[in-house]
């Protein structure tokens, strides 16, 4: 085991020479982060706004994501649809996404087309049209998106219910896409207010990874984003979820064939990269439970006990808001949710009492280091990681330090965080209670000879 680790360390150190991180801040507050990667003549450009669903208010949930859609519907200078048309004509791709913590817009292009991306992003940072006419169509699209992702997905409904129960105070309790009721009553003015509030260079981070020279990127950024005026940003209120005192449980009834269980334990997130240790120990714990095919949960619940057909665990240490340590499982045929929960409790108790083995600990660390190498194969992923670290407040340059800290985690620390946090008083459980699906009735089956009836 030790020898293998040495090999992996060598593989990792070979990478240290590649892609240095360079950061600069424009006078208007825009943070620019560049990582050179010269493997292919392409570039990824991402604009991160530190405004996600956690910055929304009750009654207008989902507005961060709706605005993200509206960002493609035209500015005073660029007609609706023109943004994407120009990027596509340059052989590029573009899209955007919204999460609890941020809203991100990105382009993937030949390296020579970077100025185009900057020009268009700088324009929609300040000149968005946001007409009521376009809004009234786009909000319909977003409601369709919610139906597709959530209403018709039993497991997504369970996740939504879990978050709502686990965070009655913190805005993580409402879904990124928003409640359907809020979407139905949202107005163009809500979107305009959101845009005015958060879209400013001093609330954004520009991340560029690819076959570029960092100095060229800074010059381009100054040229296109430099003239965008900074805003006074609203004060961000501190929002802390009160400690949980007692297990919470929600049942979701939905048409489905199998039950499904989702657990969330309240756990800390990473604030101080150098001095915190619990988040690293929780990451290792998640790896020991579900980090690889040899990990405990699948081995025990699926392979040995046949009590579940699938099981998983996950934890994200980097987050603007509070975190949950998640465990999900689908009971095997003939097994109940209660039996699965008993088996999960037993696995947790085993770690709390006996801890973890040195081999397991080492295996998780090897996985982490190998994945650091594999990550280098994707420029997009590298940019994602930089933006996430920067907007979370930890700093884009902290990735290596986090790996170093994670490698220091001991078996005792893993046992300790399991004892402290995987406890019933901090647990929220959400359970899918499957409702019968009528066998697919064929409503108007028929063959037609030519022409369509619709």
């Amino acid at each position, binding site marked *: 085991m030790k020898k*293998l680790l040495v*090999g*992996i360390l060598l*593989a990792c150190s070979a990478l240290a020479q590649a892609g240095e991180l360079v950061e600069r801040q424009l006078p208007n507050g825009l943070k620019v982060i560049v990582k050179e990667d010269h493997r*292919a003549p*392409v570039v990824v450009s991402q604009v991160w706004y530190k405004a996600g669903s956690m910055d929304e208010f009750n009654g207008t949930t989902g507005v961060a994501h709706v605005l993200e859609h509206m960002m493609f519907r035209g500015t005073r200078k660029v007609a609706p649809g023109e943004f*994407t048309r120009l990027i596509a004509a340059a*052989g590029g*791709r573009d*899209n*955007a*996404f919204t*999460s*609890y913590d941020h809203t991100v817009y990105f382009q993937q292009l*030949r390296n020579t087309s970077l100025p185009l991306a900057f020009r268009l992003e700088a324009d929609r940072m300040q000149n968005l049209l946001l007409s009521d006419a376009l809004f*009234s*169509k786009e909000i*319909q*699209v977003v*409601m*369709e998106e919610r139906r*597709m992702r959530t*209403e*018709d*997905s039993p497991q997504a409904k369970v996740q939504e219910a879990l978050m709502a129960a686990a965070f009655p105070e913190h805005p993580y309790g409402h879904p*990124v896409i928003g409640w359907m*009721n809020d979407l*139905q009553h949202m107005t163009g003015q809500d979107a305009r207010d959101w845009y005015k509030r958060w879209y400013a260079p001093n609330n954004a981070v520009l991340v560029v990874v690819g076959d570029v020279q960092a100095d060229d990127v800074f010059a381009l950024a100054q040229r296109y984003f430099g003239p965008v005026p900074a805003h006074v940003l609203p004060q961000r209120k501190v929002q802390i979820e009160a400690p949980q005192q007692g297990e919470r449980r929600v049942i979701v009834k939905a048409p*489905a*064939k199998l039950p499904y269980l989702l657990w969330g334990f309240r756990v800390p997130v990473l604030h101080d990269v150098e001095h915190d240790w619990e988040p690293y120990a929780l990451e290792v714990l998640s790896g020991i439970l579900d*980090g690889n*095919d*040899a990990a405990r949960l699948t*081995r025990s619940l*699926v392979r040995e006990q046949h009590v579940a057909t*699938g099981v998983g665990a*996950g934890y*994200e240490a980097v987050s603007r808001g509070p975190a949950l340590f998640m465990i999900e499982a*689908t009971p*095997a*045929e003939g097994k109940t949710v209660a039996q699965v929960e008993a088996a999960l409790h037993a696995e947790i108790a085993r770690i709390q009492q006996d801890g973890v083995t040195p081999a397991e600990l080492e*295996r998780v660390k090897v996985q982490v280091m*190998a*994945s650091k*190498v*594999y990550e*280098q*194969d994707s420029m997009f992923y590298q940019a994602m990681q930089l933006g996430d670290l920067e907007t979370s407040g930890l700093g884009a340059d902290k990735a290596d330090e986090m790996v170093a800290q994670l490698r220091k985690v001991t078996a005792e620390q893993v046992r300790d965080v399991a004892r402290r946090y995987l406890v019933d008083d901090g647990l929220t459980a959400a359970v899918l209670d499957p409702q019968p*699906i*009528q066998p*697919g*009735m064929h*409503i108007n*089956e028929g063959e*037609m*000879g*030519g*022409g*369509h009836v*619709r």
Partner: protein
Amino acid sequence: MYAKFVRWMLLAGFVLWQAPVWAGLDIQQWNTAAGAKVLFVANHDLPIVDVNVDFPAGSAYDVPDQSGLARLTNHLLTLGAGNRDENAMAVAQADIGASIGERFGQEEAGLSLRTLSSEKEKQQAFQLLAQSLQQPRFDAAVLARERSRMVAGIKEAEALPGTVADKAFNRALYRQHPYALPPAGETATLVRLTPADVQRFYRAHYQARYAVIAIMGDLTRAQAEALAVQLTASLPIAEGGALPPIPPVPALPQAAVEHISHPSSQSHVLIGAPVMTRTDPDYYPLLVGNYVLGGGGFDSRLTQVVRDKHGLAYSVYSYLSPMRQQGPFVLGLQTKNATADEAVRLARNVLDRFVAEGPTEAELRQAKANIAGGFPLRLDSNRKIIEYLSVIGDFDLPLNWLDEYPKKVEAVTLAQIRDAFKRRLDPNRLVEIVVGGAAQKSPADKDGRVASTAQ
């Protein structure tokens, strides 16, 4: 294997597979003594090696009363081989940070490997892959358990209108043809499958003479040659004649419409026909034309009309899936049940008009600029490159296929697109599947109706 948690993220647009292109990739090809075909690209930028090994062992090689056998066989390859049971196999991979993955499609099936290229790790990883391919254990107990997990997976997916629609669509499109068989199998046939069935399928399909090995990354040619031998020298012995080829797809006799009830708030619509092969003479005109119709995301007519203008769908698209025989042309969308008829009418109008008139000069320019102009993006990582190596190998495409790609895209004319779509796609002879809407309405559906009347 189980869905990992990802952070809540919502993409603004639905992302579609897009065709490849690049110039100047140095692909080396040879055959091993046992008859396996090898494609190799050396790249030493990162200390990584990727390997794909494919066989003609996908679901199109199933027979109806054993539907699911191909999938089960492929899945069991990773669960114990030689002197290692499933746990030992998993531990051995995890210890070196390597991972062996399943590759399964309607036509090809096999395994993939990603490993660090440091000496000790890569040697162990190659050994594990060689073992999985050549000495699978097919333990009866493991088989029984995985079989029931597959059954559970099928049941779980039956709650999703999209899955129901996919299955009905394939059935209507391909009827008796093996492309109609669901890749994951059927619950009724899966439960009957035995270790002997799996052994027989394995011996017939996982032979060196059929193997296509793609290798990408931090290896020398000599190392790649040795690896290819190591992976195939003791595969099942070739017996009897070669596998019968997948039969041609009979044309649809007539249009067919199927509406299946489902307790969902949206209706999932799939419209299509069997159209394009991988070596199709109309490949490039169809591909470039489809960008304009529904392949170009926000750039496409379907999105502009159904999504942007009418707000009826988050995702509306069309694509052509090239296969050995006629793969499907698919036009798909999801919309609330109340607007299903309207969305279908709008989408079909777009299609009818496109087939009748083809794209405009400006649209053609835009399509070419994106497909040909974006070629470096298709090949900017080892992961992407190895997938193209596998496609080239699996379908016997020429080694300069990627080099030729942008040139052939650029050469497509308006007349060729109009002609190809008119000849190959008859809007009056399509399958149309609608899943959703029913006697019982879910609360979400009611919401949808409120929203559309309020508008």
